[in-house]
């Protein structure tokens, strides 16, 4: 079920009303309802893959329970190993087996040996990369004794399957989300209104900006050789806008929906395109994933505490893993490597924690120096996005060769005026609201009712009338 469809428009109010009225505030009944709703939400897409989610839930619940009663280090490691093996095994089977089989047979044919490797033609279960990391993180936290193992199976199932963030995050930590399933939940008018507002803003980003960028991006990336260099640059920039609005829009809707049910999810984006260097970008982009890799991979590998060389190795590894996590394609590896290339000099120069605050805080406009830094950082991320969006490395390279031609200095082949108009409006709101949790807060929180309602109605009307004829799935659903 997609957030921006009629199905969800019926599903959400139904679950909301049942949750607050039919359960009579009973926490256990509410959790049962959330589990059922989440399974319906997921099964709407393909009910067969519910079994995978159930498997992951059962394994991690049992492993954590066993971990709590075991003191022997070998058994505890064995239990954790089981969780890692099952979660990563399932992920590997469904997400990466085709890639490895392909690379394996290609490697042999390169050496003059032809081998016929069969593929299982398995489709990628929705959200598997997200809930796998979430449950794996839980098992690791229990192993590290940072989190108490869940004793309530229903609450744990709700934690794994919680429908707002099930298919594309934010990837939650057990110590943040799980206790919320244990506690009593009371309806909070302020939170609910805030949730609806964030959902509205997320929908605007997804439907009006991302989905209206998509046709142009798809057209330009499908045949880069047919367009001038300037058009290719425009295509890459539009993709940067599309992927940000698509993914952060999803996160906004997920966080907002959770608030309607009395839950607080982690923030996933913090205005990343206003970053002044790549390190700041990674503190602001897909925060739940980058912090997951930091806490469960980078730090266990030694982080930055064991010398410069190890730090560089660990940083490089994190970016490669982050690329591979996105998909089984060399383009994602190249995307990760490119970011590592931009990031490592900052680590070497010890300048990766320079920009920690809000850019241009207390000012209407950024300083020239900040503006240049923001521009350069954005240009670097756009370059990396070309690899991310391309079908193959060759495709990305031909896109780049198209950009760096004489036609780079020509006028673009076409100008998508409406998309640009909305993007500029969006950018302005983002800039104004960069100090908030999400941008639209700035226009509504301290304004009178007429302005607030005017903004909300304006957003609803824009979403309705600019809803694309071919609505796109969320980009991160494929990961």
């Amino acid at each position, binding site marked *: 079920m997609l957030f921006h469809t009629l199905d969800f428009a019926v599903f959400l109010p139904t679950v909301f009303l049942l949750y607050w009225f039919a359960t009579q505030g009973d926490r256990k009944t509410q959790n049962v309802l959330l589990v059922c709703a989440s399974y319906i939400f997921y099964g709407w897409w393909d009910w067969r893959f519910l079994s995978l989610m159930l498997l992951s839930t059962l394994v991690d619940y049992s492993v954590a329970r066993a971990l709590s009663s075991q003191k022997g280090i070998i058994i505890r490691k064995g239990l954790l190993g089981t969780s890692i093996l099952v979660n990563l095994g399932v992920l590997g089977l469904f997400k990466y087996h085709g890639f490895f089989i392909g690379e394996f047979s290609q490697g042999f044919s390169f050496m003059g040996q032809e081998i016929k490797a069969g593929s299982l033609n398995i489709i990628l279960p929705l959200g598997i990369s997200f809930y796998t990391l979430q449950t794996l993180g839980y098992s690791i936290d229990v192993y590290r004794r940072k989190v108490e193992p869940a004793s309530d199976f229903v609450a744990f199932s709700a934690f794994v399957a919680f429908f707002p963030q099930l298919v594309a995050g934010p990837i939650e930590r057990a110590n943040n989300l799980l206790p919320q399933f244990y506690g009593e939940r009371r309806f909070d008018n302020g939170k609910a209104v805030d949730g609806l507002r964030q959902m509205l803003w997320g929908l605007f980003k997804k439907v009006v900006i991302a989905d209206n960028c998509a046709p142009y991006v798809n057209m330009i990336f499908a045949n880069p050789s047919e367009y001038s260099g300037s058009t290719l640059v425009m295509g890459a920039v539009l993709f940067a806008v599309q992927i940000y609005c698509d993914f952060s829009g999803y996160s906004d809707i997920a966080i907002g929906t959770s608030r309607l049910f009395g839950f607080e999810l982690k923030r996933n984006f913090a205005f990343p395109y206003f970053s002044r260097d790549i390190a700041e970008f990674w503190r602001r982009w897909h925060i739940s994933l980058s912090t997951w890799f930091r806490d469960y991979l980078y730090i266990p590998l030694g982080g930055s505490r064991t010398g410069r060389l190890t730090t560089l190795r660990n940083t490089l590894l994190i970016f490669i893993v982050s690329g591979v996590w996105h998909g089984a394609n060399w383009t994602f590896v190249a995307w990760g490597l490119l970011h590592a290339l931009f990031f490592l000099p900052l680590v070497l120069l010890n300048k990766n924690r320079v920009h920690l605050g809000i850019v241009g805080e207390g000012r209407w406009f950024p300083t020239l120096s900040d503006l240049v830094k923001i521009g350069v950082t954005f240009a670097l991320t756009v370059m990396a996005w070309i690899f991310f969006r391309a079908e193959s490395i060759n495709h990305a390279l031909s896109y780049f060769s198209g950009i760096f031609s004489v036609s780079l200095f020509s006028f673009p082949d076409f100008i998508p005026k409406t998309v640009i108009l909305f993007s500029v409006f969006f950018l302005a709101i983002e800039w104004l609201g960069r100090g908030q949790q999400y941008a639209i807060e700035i226009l509504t929180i301290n304004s009178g009712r007429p302005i607030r309602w005017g903004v909300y109605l304006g957003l*609803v009307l824009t979403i*309705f*009338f600019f809803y694309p004829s071919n609505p796109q799935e969320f980009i991160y659903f494929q990961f």
Partner: protein
Amino acid sequence: MKIFLVKVVFFASASLFLILTIGIAASKIVASQAIFAARSETKYVIFGHSHPEVAFNDAYISNFQNFSKSSEPYMYILPKVKNLIHQNPNIEVVFIEFTNDQIMEGWDRRIGSSRLMNEWMPLYGAFLEASDLFFLFRGNPIGLVEALTISFRIQFKKMWSRKYPAENIGGYFNLERDNTDSLLQSLTESGHDEIESGDERLSEYHIQCLKRIAAFCRNSRKKVFLVRSPQHPSWIRRKNESLFQQVRKETFRDLDFLDFNDFPISNSEFGDLRHLNHRGAYKFSVWFNQLLEDGLLDRGNKSDYIEKKIREMDSTLSSN
């Protein structure tokens, strides 16, 4: 909670009201600005579904333009006819396809199907009359809401981008396929025919819309003719011929009927049992052009003249 729900319902109602207001306003603006252009030399136009779409190749018929479109019901043809006639005073004669399948109830159901509504409403939603909307609402209220949603968006986007020329309003379609022999063989082997179950009753609304088209053309002082383009003798719909003739005589007795059903076409000139392919279209269009040039439309007994010309064509082909 109560306050929250009241606010949400109030906000949703206000949003709905504004969407409806803007959607209707956009539809009105698009309806008043829409451009339905025919060629300046066009005197004759034809409307209908896929049969005339593939039969009348207007490249071979002088001063003639084909505006037929596959699966297009009369309800959506009506606004097209109205706009084309209003905006193109050079149009003098309107041909409307009227054939055996178009009297059947299946068309009423098809008009109200979500699939067709979603296809046609974006094109003609701005022009539909209240009676049409009521008919659609009675048959498929949810489908209508969905189709209106799409239509409002499309009309708004047209208004926003100021793109008023009507798109996809039909034209000759060059059908390449040549499946008739194999189709006949498989039908013979399977012993099946093509008729749809539950489709034996007469259409009400679809035929009413045809009457409205004819009335509009006459009020606009245009000549109107019902036309039946060539069909294969084995086409299953021809079995309702007596019912078809009854409807024609009772409902459209004041309209001339130009019947080309028996125009001699070989199997290789049919795409399938109901559609001419490009070879058949060429043969028929050249012949039809000659009829127009010979003054078919000014003759007293057009049916006899057509029959005579078909017989002549038949004998010419036999002697060859």
